[in-house]
């Protein structure tokens, strides 16, 4: 099975995150592999291992689109266990919205399929931890004309059929789709492994292919700020929340709490 895992290099949420520059884009210093993508990577590794791993012809390819630093998300994925990596990078990609991103990623996936071994499965996290829109899996599926299975909390592949469980709103569902498919997974699906020393050493020998827009046959006008269908006109930092009144319970904090709620007209 040939699996592509989308891995995004995102600003670390443990630090303050900023929007700046032309097009009000996110500052990508201090970035890391989006933690929600680790679940997708783990799911891919498990599927490949169940099928005999690389020796049996399975592939787990970590694909990241982003500026030069984004190669670090690919490297981290290789340390965790991805078999090879692809870094799609081009100055013209900067500022791409979901539509432009899905266009470039779809082209990259077609390119990865063009070696005669078509991609069977595209795995993603349930959302990026920066944009948080969850649009990419759906838009990618639309562009590739693959079925999409999103928010999978379990995943099985038998023959050419994917079966997943999802916990959607008022329902729990079992869904089925034919490969090739796009599947996004939640943080309920597994416990991602950590890179160990052996994995870190092994990663150094693994291949990372660099792709530009020319390689995937995409014109600069289709992506980036130019190719995006939305613009962010303004971005204003919200004043951070500050601590309010803090009291220690002396036996009547419940009553004081109700006083507070009453004063705020919340009762």
């Amino acid at each position: 099975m040939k699996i592509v895992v989308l891995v995004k290099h995102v600003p670390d949420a443990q630090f303050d995150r900023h929007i700046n520059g032309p097009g009000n884009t996110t500052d990508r210093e201090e970035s890391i592999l989006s933690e929600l993508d680790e679940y997708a990577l783990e799911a891919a590794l498990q599927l490949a291992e169940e099928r005999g791993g690389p020796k049996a012809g399975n592939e787990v390819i970590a694909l990241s689109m982003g500026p030069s630093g984004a190669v670090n998300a690919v490297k981290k994925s290789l340390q965790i266990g991805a078999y090879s990596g692809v870094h799609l990078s081009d100055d013209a990609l900067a500022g791409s919205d979901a539509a432009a991103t899905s266009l470039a990623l779809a082209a990259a996936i077609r390119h990865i399929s063009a070696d005669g071994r078509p991609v069977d499965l595209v795995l993603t996290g349930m959302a990026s931890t920066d944009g948080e829109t969850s649009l990419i899996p759906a838009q990618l599926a639309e562009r590739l004309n693959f079925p999409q299975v999103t928010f999978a909390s379990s995943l099985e592949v038998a023959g050419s059929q994917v079966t997943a469980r999802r916990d959607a709103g008022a329902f729990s569902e079992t869904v089925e789709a034919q490969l090739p498919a796009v599947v996004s997974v939640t943080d309920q699906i597994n416990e991602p492994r950590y890179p160990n020393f052996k994995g870190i050493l092994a990663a150094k020998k693994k291949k990372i292919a660099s792709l530009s827009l020319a390689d995937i046959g995409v014109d600069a006008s289709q992506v980036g700020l130019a190719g995006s269908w939305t613009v962010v006109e303004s971005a204003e930092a919200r004043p951070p929340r500050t601590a309010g009144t803090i009291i220690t319970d002396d036996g009547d904090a419940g009553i004081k709490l109700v006083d507070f709620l009453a004063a705020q007209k919340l009762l």
Partner: protein
Amino acid sequence: MANALVFIDNPGAALKKSSLELLTIARSLGETAVAFTGELTDDVAATLGAYGATTVYRPSVEELDNYLVGPKAAYLAAAVAASGATVVLLDNSPEGKEIAGRLGIKLNAGVITDVVGVEADGTAHKSVLAGSYNTTAKATTPVTVLSVKANNVEPAPAGADAAPATVTVEVPAEGLANSARIAARTEKPVSGRPDLSEARIVVAGGRGVDGDFGPLEELADALGAAVGASRAATDAGWIGHDAQVGQTGVTVSPQLYISAGISGAIQQKAGMQTSKVIVAINKDAESPVFEIADYGIVGDLFKVLPQATEEIKKRKG
């Protein structure tokens, strides 16, 4: 020709408040049509009319619900073409956002999710990076697709009571062909409490509740609130996963969020820090949740919550 098209998916016997909100926003954009799925009862049709919808589109096939989003996006694209609408409004549920996403590709239209306000020209307001920035964004395309969060406008009827015309829209066959099929579906038990994502008040518990959500549920019922949880509490199996608030759970933005026995990890904060008022009850004065609480109580939730519940009942008589 409609200006705005509102997608209303399977409302059942009555329209949800979030749908009424979408209709209210749509009216501020111009003439409103509705793309509807599911059974259109007389009551629902009358409400759609009262909220200003002039046309209600319905799909030519009934099996849209047997597939994941693909066919609904295909239907909605056909309804956009039929109505000529330039703005499409959907709710901000995971499914609403995905339909919006696919629709955007089908129509070459910009999609903006998590919208909290819409101006008359379609400019949208949203907050990003876990609530740390307020932004305005706009689609540059002829059609704009917006998924709008609940609780940002007061639903208001149009004051007209003309019944909308109903029109059937042909769902393209390829919409069904390449979609994931729903093989089984079980409805989860309903609590009778308000829906978490729409509730005005949320009472949420974490690892500190130590398996017992009883005191939280009692406070929630006294306040008419929804019950939420941290991932530690849902992972422990004390409460269903759909109660989880945070980065990988539900994002809430209520008038009041009461956090009890929750430390306030970054992933939890991501789902609640745009709440109007935050109250935190935690034994540990060093818990990060106190950094964002408007009112913090360092104390044992098993003492504080029942006392508060008692007091609320007393005052409400």
